[in-house]
């Protein structure tokens, strides 16, 4: 079986599995909506203040939602033994992982980006920054997912691992957060953001080939 077909088959299978358990996907989205609404309640509903914090809030809550959505990534496969079969199969594990992550991104992270666009006007983010918010999330969230999956794979089988994953992964999220939120804030003031977006793209290019290798290595450690 050539790699392309392996990739497509895994992608379709994984997408179907996620689609059948869609409530798992909805929960992080609900978390996003509810947490965003806490900020005007906790800070103040003044438009100037919300306008100033909106880029950071939209990005931080997106980042936390992605961390929360990581849980079903390998846990189900680990529990029912599918993961062991995947490790034993002669196909390269990193390609299978990449397909799984793409399915996860398409079905549960992409709706999150749309939700962020929906909530941005509620936080008085200027319309001029909407395009940048979309582009920065489009480039940044795959990096977050890839790094988060490393953390998830490392803690496989540990009880109550969700919190541990956060502790391991959050420091690595900082560059993406700085560049992502920074680009949206710059766009709000009308400045050029191509530099920040290029950096986000560079991180994606770096993470895309390297992270699946780390995830594969971590899964092999967790299984034996």
């Amino acid at each position: 079986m050539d790699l392309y077909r392996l990739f497509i088959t895994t992608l379709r299978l994984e997408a179907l599995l996620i689609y059948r358990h869609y409530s798992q996907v909805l929960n992080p989205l609900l978390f996003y909506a509810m947490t965003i609404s806490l900020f005007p309640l906790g800070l103040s509903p003044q438009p100037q203040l919300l306008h100033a914090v909106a880029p950071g809030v939209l990005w931080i809550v997106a980042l936390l939602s992605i961390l929360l959505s990581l849980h079903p990534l390998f846990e189900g496969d680990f529990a029912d033994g599918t993961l062991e079969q995947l490790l034993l199969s002669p196909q390269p594990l990193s390609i299978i992982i990449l397909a799984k992550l793409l399915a996860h991104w398409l079905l549960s992270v992409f709706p999150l980006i749309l939700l962020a666009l929906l909530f941005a006007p509620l936080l008085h983010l200027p319309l001029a920054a909407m395009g940048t918010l979309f582009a920065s999330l489009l480039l940044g969230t795959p990096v977050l997912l890839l790094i988060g999956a490393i953390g998830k794979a490392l803690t496989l089988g540990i009880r109550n691992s969700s919190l541990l994953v956060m502790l391991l992964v959050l420091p690595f999220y900082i560059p993406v957060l700085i560049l992502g939120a920074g680009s949206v804030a710059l766009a709000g003031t009308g400045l050029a953001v191509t530099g920040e977006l290029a950096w986000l793209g560079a991180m994606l290019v770096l993470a895309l080939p390297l992270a699946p290798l780390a995830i594969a290595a971590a899964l092999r450690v967790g299984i034996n």
Partner: protein
Amino acid sequence: MWLWFNKLTTSKVFYQFAGRLLPWLGALTIILLAYGLYGGLVLAPPDYQQGDAFRIIYVHVPCALLSMMIYVFMAVAAAVGLIFRIKLADMLVTASAPLGASFTLLALVTGSLWGKPMWGAWWVWDARLTSELILLFLYLGVIALRSAIPDREQAAKACAILLIVGVINIPIIHYSVYWWNTLHQGATLKLFGSSLIAPSMLHPLLAMIAAFIFYFAVVLLLRTRCEILKRERKSRWVLELKN
């Protein structure tokens, strides 16, 4: 060479080797520390701008330097252990993690003690302070992962992967934080070209840095020896050692 290296990494040989090395390293540490402290606190003149407050660099700079060095050391040791399956490497990593975290914390504390009179605040969200804080989180993450996995070999491998990912990410984190905000004074010591500091202030600083590195080596060897005894407590040579 390879044979010698292989032999050294067996627990018993390393235990004896470290035992012989320790007095020398300890003596070096004390001599360098004595010279560094005397030179730094007594001989060096007060700074024309910062007065005597600058003297905290004799503790702060070595701590900050070691906090970064130890992480790289851990990553290299973990990678070597992962590739060549050397148990000793994991013991070194285990012993280093709390030391690295302590040096990072010390760098943060001494930095904020200096920051209060100089910048007028205990803490500012400056690039170097922030990356040091993130480094502390990275150390704590390694320690947390290590203690969460009960199986020792599995924990060693998982920590090794985390450390390798970390060491790739540290430059990215560092430069992104720099880009975000900076207030800290520029680097005083330069590897290439002349340093921006008078020789009478510089020499004690270099001595202190060397002293801290040797101190780290001493504590690392002590802790590793302890770890070896703990792990090999049922083997014959340890039991013989007891009697």
